[in-house]
Each structure stands twice: as C-alpha cells, then as structure tokens.
C-alpha cells in the first residue's frame, strides 16, 4: 500500500505493508532510532510518538492507519524551545535513560498544549511511561515549578 506521512516536517511517500507497525517503519525503514521497543504492548511508553498533536504508542499502530498524518519524534523537536527547557530542567535526572525519549515526548505534548500544567496533569501525562529506575517523583518535582517565560 502507498502510504504518505509527514515525519518531523518532511513529506515521505513509501510503498509498504500497511500492517507493519509504525515503530518498525520508523526504526527499520526511516532510521528513526529514538523510538524504542520495550514491551510491544502499549504498556511501557518507550515507543511514544506524537501524531497530529496527540501522543500514541507506535507499537500499536499499523502504518496504514497513519496515512496523511503528521508524526513527530524526538528527532523532529530537538530544537524546539519547550523541549530544550524540559531537558534543561531534567538534566541529570534520568538514570538508565530507556524511558527518557518516551517521557520527553509525553511531556512535550503536555507543555505544548498547556504552558503551566499542575502537578496532577504532569503525573497523568507520564502515567503511560514506565520507568523502573529514575522514578517519577523527581521528574514531577522539577517540572511543577515551571516559570512561564
């Protein structure tokens, strides 16, 4: 099937098996390595991407269903002010880092939608990102005192 996506602002057209998971298309066909496969069942959030402004687990999405949609990964938002600020605040927080990209995607989508989320909203935003070493508390604490610049 012919699938057209707008990946990090770039229009990409490809002839591809529509059932191939978006995570596999990104990693294998498009060299996007920031999306990681943890559980492959939508539980861990390390494959998180933004599609048309909302977050999704790319392991649960057949690429045929995102035809004509806008997809963002870390690679496409690296230079965005919001992401830079999130990363600055979370500097040295992540330990092993496996969940980091997924967490950053979830947080970026949240802050993009709402500049001053409260503690509960931050917690909810990363509730689908499984972290087993850094913990959530530091991330929430470092971000809740966000000063609007």
């Amino acid at each position, binding site marked *: *099937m012919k699938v057209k996506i707008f990946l990090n602002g770039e229009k990409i057209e490809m002839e591809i*098996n*529509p*059932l191939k*998971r978006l995570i596999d298309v990104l990693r294998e066909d498009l060299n996007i390595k920031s999306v990681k496969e943890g559980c*492959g*069942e*939508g*539980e861990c*959030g390390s494959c*998180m991407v933004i599609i048309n402004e*909302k*977050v*999704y*687990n790319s*392991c*649960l*999405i*057949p690429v*045929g*269903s995102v*035809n004509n949609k806008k997809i963002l990964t870390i690679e496409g938002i690296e230079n965005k002010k919001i992401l830079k600020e999130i990363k600055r605040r979370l500097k040295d927080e992540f330990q092993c880092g496996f969940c980091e990209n997924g967490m950053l995607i*979830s947080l970026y989508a949240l802050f993009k939608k709402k500049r001053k989320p409260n503690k509960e909203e931050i917690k*909810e*935003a990363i*509730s*689908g*990102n*499984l972290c087993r070493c850094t913990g959530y508390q530091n991330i929430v604490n470092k971000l809740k005192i966000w000063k609007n610049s």
Partner: protein
Amino acid sequence: MEEFIIPKSLNEALRIMSEMDVEPFAGGTDIMVKYRYDKPAKPFLFIGDLKELRYVKDDGEYIRIGSSTTYSELLENRNIDKIFKEIIKKIASPSIRNRGTIGGNICNASPAADTLPFLYGMDCEVQIVSINNSRFIPIKDFIISPKRTLILKNELLKEIRYKKEKFNKYFYRKIGLRNANSLSKLSFFGCARIKKNIIEDIRISMGAVSPVVAREREIEKMLLGLDKKGLNSIKEEIIKRYEDIIHPIDDQRSTAEYRREIVLRILNYFLENIYII
C-alpha cells in the same frame, strides 16, 4: 488481497462487510497485541477514522456516542457525565486513551472491560448496522459471554446510547495493581436517586466477577422505596443475593476468593454510605 482496507465512509465499510469476511479495526489497542506474533487470518477493515462513527450527541432524550469515539474524545466532551469521565480516566494511560475506542471496549466483550459496569447501569443500548439493516439491542443482551457478542459477520456497532436519567448518588471503584495501565481485578459501579432519604431508583453493577457484568434488576427492586432503616434491615440479605449471582474465577490477575470478598465489601460500603456519598 489487501490486508488493511480503509473505507471512505460507513456505507462503503458496510458494503465491504457484506461482500467479504473482514475484521473491524477501530483503535487496535487490543488487536495489535493479539496479532503481535501471528498473522491475522482476515483483512482488517479500518473504521477508526470514519467521521460517521466519531461523535457524541445529546438529543434531549439520549446521549448518543459513535462507536469509534476514543476515550480521550469522551473525556473532552461536555455531554459526557462526570462519573463516566471518572471511570474513563482510570482506563489505561493517555496514549492508549487517544487510540482506544468505546466500541472496541464493548465488542471485545471482556469481563473486565471498564466501560461496561457504567453502561449496564445506564441500561445502555447498542445500535448494530449492516448494509440493509439497523437494530438497537440492550447491552446486556448484546454481550453473550467473554469475547462473544450477538454481532454478525456483516455488521458493525454504530452507536451506543443511554437515556439521560438523573441520579444524585454516583459511586465507582476499580481495583487494579496500580493507577495507570492496569487491567481491573474487579470493578463496581453504583448509582441511585434518593429523595428525602427514600431510594427512588438504584443501579448496581459489578465488573470482572462474572463472565459478563453482574447486574440484577430484581435485587435492585428490593431496595426501592426503602429509607435508611429499611435498607439496613435487609442489607445482609441483599449482599447474600449478590453473592449468589456472581461467579468470580482465578486467573493471572486475581483469585476468585479475593474478587468475591472485595466486591461484596465494596457493595457493603456502598449500601452503608449511600446517603452520604
């Protein structure tokens, strides 16, 4: 043969279903896990993006929800009751709620499906359509047993509707291992309309303690018209009646004993606190 068919309209989807054997695919949050290692036997029919299936309407009498409406869309819609939103917020995580649909939750017919206790409590009906037919069925008749519904091969679930009824007491508990991304060990939904301490109406439904949601109008009727004292005098009997209708099982998430014990304790709590909830 196409493995992933994307119809442009509901009519086209129904026409395809009348001509060939396909598996409807809305959000796919369950399907993608199911077919992670196995090749699907039938082509998927992608109905997740059909606008005709993504809506929430209030027509004065009913709240009507299109089957491919996602949990996130329900949370954002002002026509959806506060209690239903509280229930939905406890389902999975934001990214799954952006994708998972209410129709999928119903058609998968899992005993642990989190929207079902509420929908049973609201006497919800589902609209089943095919290319030349449409019918409304009460949800309690639609779901036959775990993973089995009345839907035929050429039919789609189009709409979920429930009457706008006013209750002044709402109560919901979900028991799972953690707040996000946990499947229910069991769940409990109760609501009531109480005026001057008299129970005018009451609904009680329990999830994941039976093959299908446990709700029994006959038991609820025993509570109608009762005041505090009356309720207290038959409380034990009511609990006993519910104990008789539930059939919890042991599985990877919990044990039959735990489920029975906890759901009856929650029932007890609900009945004891119904006036102050």
